[in-house]
């Protein structure tokens, strides 16, 4: 891990240092002006959250069916990051909504789905922490169900209500905005990779320590 950690860390730090300038120089969106800039923070956070949910669901399914404990550690790390990046999205979304819609919260399809996924993964962390012995399996099932639930929540809430800007906004961005947007996404993804690497390493070491304690006792 040491080999790639430092270079990736350097690139990520550099990207985050440059990002404010890139975002400040990106052209204003014609109707929302300055408010729209939060988009460079908000959307990448969701991109990372969905990536994290996907990783968590897949690795926990591997853990459940193959019993590979390393997969469980990766899934747990991803679940924690899903909650953190989800929280970023949930904080920045209402800030924008207050200006654009005039209210902090709308029971819109995407908002509701994001909130539910956040709740599911907070549930995951709670079970893992307070579930007692064997809680890894419980939380693993929760992650798999959380992932499976995405399309159902999406469809049902979508029929129920929709006011959020469509995801088809992204391909229609102007040239200056396009670059700044993907720059932000890359920076967030790199940050995610870094945090994942740290978190997985931490879990591996904890597991190693637990094994040593167990060996000592027997």
């Amino acid at each position, binding site marked *: 891990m040491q080999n790639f950690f430092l270079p990736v860390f350097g690139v990520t730090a550099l990207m985050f240092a440059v990002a404010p300038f890139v975002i400040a120089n990106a052209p204003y969106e014609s109707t929302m002006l300055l408010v729209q800039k939060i988009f460079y923070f908000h959307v990448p956070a969701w991109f990372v959250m969905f990536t994290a949910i996907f990783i968590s669901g897949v690795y926990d399914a591997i853990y*459940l069916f193959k019993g590979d404990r390393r997969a469980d550690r990766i899934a747990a790390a991803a679940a924690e990051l899903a909650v953190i990046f989800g929280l970023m999205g949930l904080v920045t979304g209402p800030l924008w909504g207050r200006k654009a819609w005039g209210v902090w919260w709308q029971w819109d399809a995407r908002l509701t789905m994001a909130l*539910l996924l956040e709740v599911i993964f907070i549930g995951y962390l709670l079970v893992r922490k*307070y*579930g007692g012995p064997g809680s890894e399996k*419980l939380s693993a099932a929760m992650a798999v*169900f959380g992932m499976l639930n995405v399309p159902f929540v999406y469809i049902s809430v979508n*029929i129920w209500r929709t006011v959020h800007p469509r995801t088809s906004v992204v391909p229609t961005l102007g040239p200056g905005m396009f670059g700044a947007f993907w720059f932000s996404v890359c920076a967030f993804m790199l940050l995610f990779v870094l945090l994942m690497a740290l978190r997985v390493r931490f879990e591996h070491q904890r597991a190693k320590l637990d094994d040593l304690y167990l060996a000592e006792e027997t």
Partner: protein
Amino acid sequence: MSPIRVALLILKKDFAIEVKSLEIVSTTLFFAVSCLIVFSFAFVKEGAPVQDAAAGILWIAIAFSGTLALGRIFERERYGETLRALLLAPAPRPAIYLGKLFGMVLLMLSTEVVLVPMVALLFQAPLFSRPLLLIVLLLAGTVGFASVGTLFAAMLVRARTREIMLPILLYPVTIPVMIAGVQGTSALLQNTPDEAMATMWISIVTAFDTVFLTFCLWMFEPLMTE
């Protein structure tokens, strides 16, 4: 022995125990009725119920009482230390899950048989204008809720904090069922019932049931190994 036969045997066993004491049925039912009474204070203004409240009240009462019942169905196995014996039985694990699920669905349906007329009566809701669609919607919703619930309840049997964990895990996952149930029921409660809308929600719940039931059957085995 075929899995369905095993499932029916487990259902028969649980039914025989339940008939003797009526513990779960009576407590669940009474809890559901208490929920309705509490809701009536919130959703009845000047003698008349708030518009469209009936569908939500019905489904919340179903979900709450269902959660209570889910907490109990495996509790009995735990007290009697019989869960291990059940798991050791020379029967496929999914059949055990299926047996418990049958019991849970029957239990919830028997509560609904009392709940639906009570909601219709107390909140002046024309719930019986399209009885067949309502029955299908209730059945599909109950199966969806119970399928995920039975799996989670089984998983949580050994967890320390199971009473609080069950609703924490169950409600976010079963939200699609709740949305479909509430929206479908309120479509049926319109002055002219919106059958197309209700049918669409029924098909969404049925799809949910199919996917989640398959996954529950698939996951019960790895989850219940010690």
